[in-house]
């Protein structure tokens, strides 16, 4: 199909220009720059000196960075296999429109519009050994107070728990898809004597496959890039037990180790892409953009 040259070509270019300039500056350029800088020795000033893959060898041999990768994988697994299934469970319940479901849907999403800074400070306070609500509960049960975020044994689970319990975002995506399933399917199943549970397993879940794969893909991709809540709650500690690739990148940058920080960025992007491509290969091809609304 050959398209005729649009007579408005110049005006079209004019209208596209601002977005393209911003996209080039804040998406395309940083992408190319990060890859280039990762192959050099560079401390932010002076010229970059090409050294090949040395930064990557150094990073992958570094105990802390390997721990960071492991923690990101734990985040990704917890997000994909705990957070999303919980979101699916709630979405299936809400899709049957119980009393007050619209209000519940709105309230479940509320934490998503509150800043990570505020939520992290609230959860840090809740985990606080002196006046925190969780230890208050433990004391009511006659248990000893614990320093949840200060103990390497409990810090990572504590940070992940507050993350995966906020299901609002994935719940809304899946609920929207569930409510798009034709009602006739359920009516027919009802006539055939299928119980609610059978209907969910035989109709809803298979029909939602695409949306659930999309949600898992996004959740795991977010897990691989997790940074903010942990940085705010523990700074990656204690003893690096909660560190992530993003935190390591930030700390390296703060120490002016720009080229190593860039290499961490490349690894973060590559592993994130591996997760996205891998899940879609494993669970079936779906287009996250097209799928979510269906």
């Amino acid at each position, binding site marked *: 199909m050959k398209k005729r040259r649009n007579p408005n070509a110049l005006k079209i270019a004019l209208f596209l220009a601002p977005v*393209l300039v911003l996209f080039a500056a804040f998406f395309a350029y940083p992408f190319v720059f990060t890859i280039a800088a990762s192959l050099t020795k560079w401390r932010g000033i002076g010229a970059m000196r090409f050294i090949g893959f040395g930064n990557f060898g150094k990073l992958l041999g570094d105990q802390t960075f390997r721990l960071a990768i492991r923690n990101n994988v734990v985040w990704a697994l917890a997000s994909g296999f705990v957070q999303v299934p919980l979101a699916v469970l709630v979405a299936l319940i809400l899709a049957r429109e119980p009393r007050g479901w619209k209000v519940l849907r709105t309230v479940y*999403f509320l934490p998503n519009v509150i800043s990570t800074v505020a939520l992290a400070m609230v959860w840090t306070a809740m985990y606080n050994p002196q006046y925190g609500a969780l230890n208050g509960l433990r004391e009511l049960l006659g248990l000893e107070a614990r320093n949840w975020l200060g103990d390497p044994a409990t810090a990572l689970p504590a940070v992940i728990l507050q993350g995966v319990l906020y299901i609002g975002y994935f719940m809304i995506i899946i609920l929207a898809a569930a409510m798009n399933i034709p009602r006739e399917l359920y009516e027919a199943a009802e006539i055939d004597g299928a119980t609610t549970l059978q209907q969910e397993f035989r109709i809803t879940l298979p029909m939602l496959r695409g949306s659930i794969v999309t949600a898992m893909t996004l959740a795991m991709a977010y897990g691989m890039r997790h940074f903010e809540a942990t940085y705010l709650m523990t700074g990656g500690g204690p003893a690096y037990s909660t560190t992530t690739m*993003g935190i390591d990148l930030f700390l390296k940058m703060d120490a002016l180790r720009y080229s190593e920080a860039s290499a961490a960025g490349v690894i973060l992007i590559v592993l994130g892409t591996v997760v996205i491509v891998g899940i879609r290969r494993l669970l079936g091809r779906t287009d996250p953009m097209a799928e979510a609304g269906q």
Partner: protein
Amino acid sequence: MRAKNKALSLGAGLLKWTVLLFFLAVALLPLAWLVLNSFKTNLELQASPFSLPARPAFENYANAIAMAELPRLFVNSVLVAVGTVFLNLLVSSMAGFVLAREAWKGRDTVRTVLEAGVLVPIIAFMVPYFTLVTKLGLYDKLYTLILVYAAINIPVSIFLVTSFMRSIPKELEEAAIIDGCGFFQRYSKVILPLSRSGLVTAGTFCFIYAWNEFVMAMLLTSSIHSRTIQLGIRFFTSQFITDYAGMFAAIVLSMLPSVLAYVFLHNKIIAGLTAGAVKG
């Protein structure tokens, strides 16, 4: 048989509501605890995490406003958020217009590339963002945050705005062309007004993002003149670390704008999320 079914459905109902109430508690209790604590004195905070205040300690809010130039940071955040919404909607609506309403070669590719930006982990770009901004002399400027936030929100806004503009019937535009509307008037007089609903959705996402953003603000600003409220509650309250009650009050104040935006516009937000995989 009938009694068994009844018991079963009663059990299922109980289970169902346990799940729903549990997640209701997860969403609301930490916030309720925060608000409760913001009205207690520091002495009451030490005594018990669950006790009710003897009387609401409004002075916590007065202290929060007096501390650490919080009002200045609040105003900075308002300027950044409003500026981000304006800049992002301006450029996204222009690009959305030609992506949705004009036929040209390479259009679908451009749209796909722009939208694929949502999959990019921005935190991997801390080094280039910092060096680019410093090199351009934009470090520690309020408008830098506007520029960066507007850019980061392009993929989401292009997706929402272009989808919306594509759904506008062709006839409305054709009528305008017959009336003598040119390219620019079709954008400003026809498509833009008809896209209001889609623009409000995209704008709400931008506002909430810009109000809540922390990492880039920490990275790209350093002085009170350009820092935002998120940095304020993170860093400036630590000067008064013994005043936990005042800190809680400051956090409550920092949450108000995005919570209010959500209260009034939650239908738009949910519609936007439903339209596509958009990070909220």
